[in-house]
């Protein structure tokens, strides 16, 4: 009887086939939600009856509780699995079966690493740059430090997020994999500085992370993060250092808010549950994109224009963007831009991106075929996925055929280009670069709205202050627009590698971008005269 029961891979295929029939859809993905695809409990009854008829021991409850094929098969697998099987978690079905027995003791789940993760780790190893892809954040709490409560909060945080208990394996299994451990050593260090003022604590924290960079996080050892607390008399400063390969900027903010909540509310903290299967869902979409020739062709076409700044020379080594220029964007300007965005029915991001495209065109002396890298969010759209800590972003080339015309036209063009790219975002940048045999762009634009940090103000107890965030990407010229940062408000930050981009060019870009935003906020229908004359 045992050998007649289909294995997980077969079961998944059979259930997908049955669902496709009852939901009248040509195909059902591993992560398509039964309800989202139109299912209800009566359809569920028919699906369960068919699955049972084909040898799958599934009940109505199983399907209603696990509304994706991945979760359902994992739940069935879990119930039937022998007790000593180390791997669990819904995403483990993505790891080749041959690897399951090879997982070390103490690993509770594992899944193939994404191309993006592999690329990040490869670059940080190759560059020898210890700062590359180390994400750092810190804040000051103007109150006495309760060490026991903090340790409990940190322990619960680590239990909550798989990413904080993970490491990578790049040789022991048939594919590069991210391993999730049942437990990890505490990453906490505490430095007591009796009588230190808040300013001295913050300074000490910055010294600590400079020193910490001498001991970079080892991707083969969990946890891939550290936590440092500098404790003064009536204040303390917390610093988190996390490997970017396990966490993106949004997740870093979420982890920070979770830690603050767990510390402020102790046993009463009730954080909403983190959903399963988010990481696996992204991995699946990456694999699907890599296998799709239409996607590869799309990106080749989007980036197949001469580069703007570097003349098409493939830089040797990894860019070292260690010079930054920071400009504050005042609240009135941002409010005006928001109003213009509403009038034009465009997201605020598209206005800033439009201004960036024109400033970039001027820097390169070109009005046609402008390509800029754009950092995009690839977080799977499933309930509660925002609560899941992981790496869900990509940087992709966005191409506009011209930066002429009115601001409104330009911003719409950028928005349309971004929307056009939406179905293809899971295709990893590294592969676009391989297909093209050079970097597809030399300038990257990133827009961040820091509203997640605003939650930190409403937790009760002394409000944390002095938030800072730091990270170093691997692009020669990167433009960051931050909106509503808790500490520094809205700002424009340009980070560049002076070996690739001249300092005066970077400054010219910043000045032009600042002017562009003012013009855009004042008269979005004006034709920019400089763009017109350079045409």
């Amino acid at each position, binding site marked *: 009887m045992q050998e007649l029961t289909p294995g997980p891979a077969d079961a998944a295929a059979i259930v997908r086939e049955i669902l496709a029939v009852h939901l009248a859809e040509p195909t059902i993905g591993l992560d398509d939600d039964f309800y989202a695809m139109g299912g209800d409990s*009566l359809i*569920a009854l028919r699906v369960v009856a068919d699955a049972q008829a084909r040898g799958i021991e599934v009940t109505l409850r199983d399907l*209603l509780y696990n509304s994706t094929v991945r979760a359902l098969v994992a739940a069935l697998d879990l119930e039937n699995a022998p007790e000593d099987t180390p791997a669990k978690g819904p995403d483990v079905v993505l790891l080749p079966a041959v690897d399951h027995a090879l997982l070390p003791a103490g690993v509770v789940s594992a899944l193939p690493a994404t191309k993006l993760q592999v690329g990040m780790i490869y670059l940080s190893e190759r560059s020898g740059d210890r700062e590359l892809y180390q994400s750092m954040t810190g804040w000051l709490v103007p109150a006495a430090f309760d060490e026991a409560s903090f340790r409990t909060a940190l322990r619960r945080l680590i239990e909550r997020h798989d990413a904080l208990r993970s490491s990578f394996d790049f040789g022991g299994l048939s594919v590069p994999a991210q391993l999730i451990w049942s437990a990890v050593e505490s990453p906490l260090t505490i430095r007591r500085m009796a009588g230190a003022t808040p300013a001295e604590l913050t300074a000490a924290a910055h010294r600590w992370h400079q020193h910490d960079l001498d001991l970079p996080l080892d991707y083969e050892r969990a946890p891939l993060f550290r936590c440092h607390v500098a404790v003064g008399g009536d204040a303390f400063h917390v610093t988190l250092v996390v490997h970017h390969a396990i966490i993106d900027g949004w997740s870093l903010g979420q982890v920070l808010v979770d830690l603050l909540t767990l510390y402020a509310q102790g046993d009463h903290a009730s954080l909403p549950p983190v959903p399963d299967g988010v990481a696996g869902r992204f991995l699946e979409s990456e694999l699907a994109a890599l296998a799709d020739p239409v996607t590869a062709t799309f990106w080749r076409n989007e980036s197949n224009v001469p580069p703007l700044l570097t003349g098409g020379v493939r830089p040797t080594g990894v860019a070292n963007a260690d010079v930054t220029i920071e400009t504050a964007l005042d609240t009135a300007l941002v409010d005006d831009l928001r109003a213009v965005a509403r009038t034009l029915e465009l997201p605020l991001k598209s206005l800033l991106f439009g201004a960036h495209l024109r400033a970039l065109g001027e820097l390169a002396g070109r009005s046609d075929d402008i390509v800029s890298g754009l950092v995009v969010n690839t977080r799977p759209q499933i*309930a*509660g996925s925002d609560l899941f800590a992981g790496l869900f972003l990509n940087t992709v080339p966005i191409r506009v055929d011209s930066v002429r015309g009115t601001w409104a036209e330009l911003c719409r063009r950028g928005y349309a280009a971004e929307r056009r790219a939406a179905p293809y975002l899971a295709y990893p940048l590294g592969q676009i670069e391989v297909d093209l045999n050079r970097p597809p762009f030399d300038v990257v634009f990133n827009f961040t709205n820091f509203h997640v940090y605003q939650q930190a103000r*409403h937790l009760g107890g002394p409000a944390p202050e002095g938030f800072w965030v730091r990270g170093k990407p691997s692009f020669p010229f990167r433009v960051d627009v931050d909106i509503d940062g808790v500490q520094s408000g809205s700002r424009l930050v340009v980070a560049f590698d002076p070996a690739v981009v001249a300092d005066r060019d970077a400054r010219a870009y910043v000045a032009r971008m600042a002017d562009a935003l003012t013009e855009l906020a004042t008269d979005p229908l004006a034709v920019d005269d400089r763009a017109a004359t350079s045409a």
Partner: protein
Amino acid sequence: MTADQPVIAVVFDAGAVSAAEIAVGITGVGQPLFLVPDTEHTSHLRPVLTQLGKVLPLTGALDDVRREAPDAILTFSEQMLPATAELAAALGLPFHDVATVTLLTDKQRQRTALREAGVDDVRQYPLRCATDWPAAVAAVGLPAIIKPLIGGGSRDTFRVDDAEQGQALATRIFARSATAGAFVVEEFISGRPSLPFSDLVSVESLCGPAGLRHLAVSSYLPLVPPFILTGRFWPCHLPESEQREIIALTDRALTALGVRHGVTHTEIKLTPVGPRIIEVNGRMGGHVNDIARAASGVDMVRLAARLAMGEPIEVPQLRPDRVHFQYHTPAPFRPARMVAMHGAAEARRLPGVTGYRVFVRPGEHLDGAVRIREMDFAWGACDDYDDMHRTLAALRRTLSYDFEFDGSVRRVHAAELSGAHDEVASGPEASYPVTSGPAA
């Protein structure tokens, strides 16, 4: 299912949450015992219910229920509130008490209680037959609304702007059926201009040993006249200070109605003079559990079950990171048979849309004004309110339905049914008057 789990009696009929949501939600708290009235809905769903828990007839002997020794009792169905309160009293389990359920279900007594407690003063007059109309309009004035004395969900609710129209409507209501229930005429509370949102909001509350707790203020998409909901969204678009005012009003209303143990859904109108109570319902709002789970991972059924078990509930802080929305296309006002629907797969692929379900199957008959029905249900999440409006407009452009009206089949777009007339392409197909009001 194991014997040592607490038994949670669920008085089940069509309501705010589905049988599946109930089963999933109460897992870990207890096992369900479904007590079902003999209705079309429950006979339809019986095969599902029997796989999810034990099923007993509601009208059976109380002793049968006692033998199951339920540890808790609750309902998600408006029409089951009185029966649930009586059972709870007989079994000695916490629930809204019988007197409170009367105030929560009888809209006239509810208004009286709110008036006496000084919470709000809305003119009202009972309408027991068509000849009551002249006295009612004299007492209440115009504009007014006519709505059923008992019930919720904007069913059979009409706005009246002149006395003659009101008389005609009253005559029609009572002529329709000799057994038409009692109605009530109520002063129309004018909202303040609120587009592109609705002037209606609602508050979900839980009351138990820990006292009154309010979970969230929901905002709505603009209503289709007269009072048809087309969707809701979280988080609420109003400033925090105004949300606090809304919650304070809800608190006063629930206290006035004597709510001590249970879940409530309070509808509130935003008016030029501040928020005013439309009505308080003694159960969860429709689809609220869906949006709570999507937006914040909070299962409202689980909270309600824990509350029914007598646990003190502290509501979690809801933290929707994005704007989460729900959308319905309302059925046409004229009787029609649904022939086909188009665009479901395309709707699911729209950026910002998470899922789409259809509630009305081809071949089904829709009875027009008698009962306004949600034909479908789309949900999703967007970066901000503007992005949500763009997504909704795209949804309304994507979805369309073929209806047979009086023997001829016409294609009607969701935009038209949802009252978004500016989105409707002009042309003979789009001009069929399916939403011109219930007076047809």
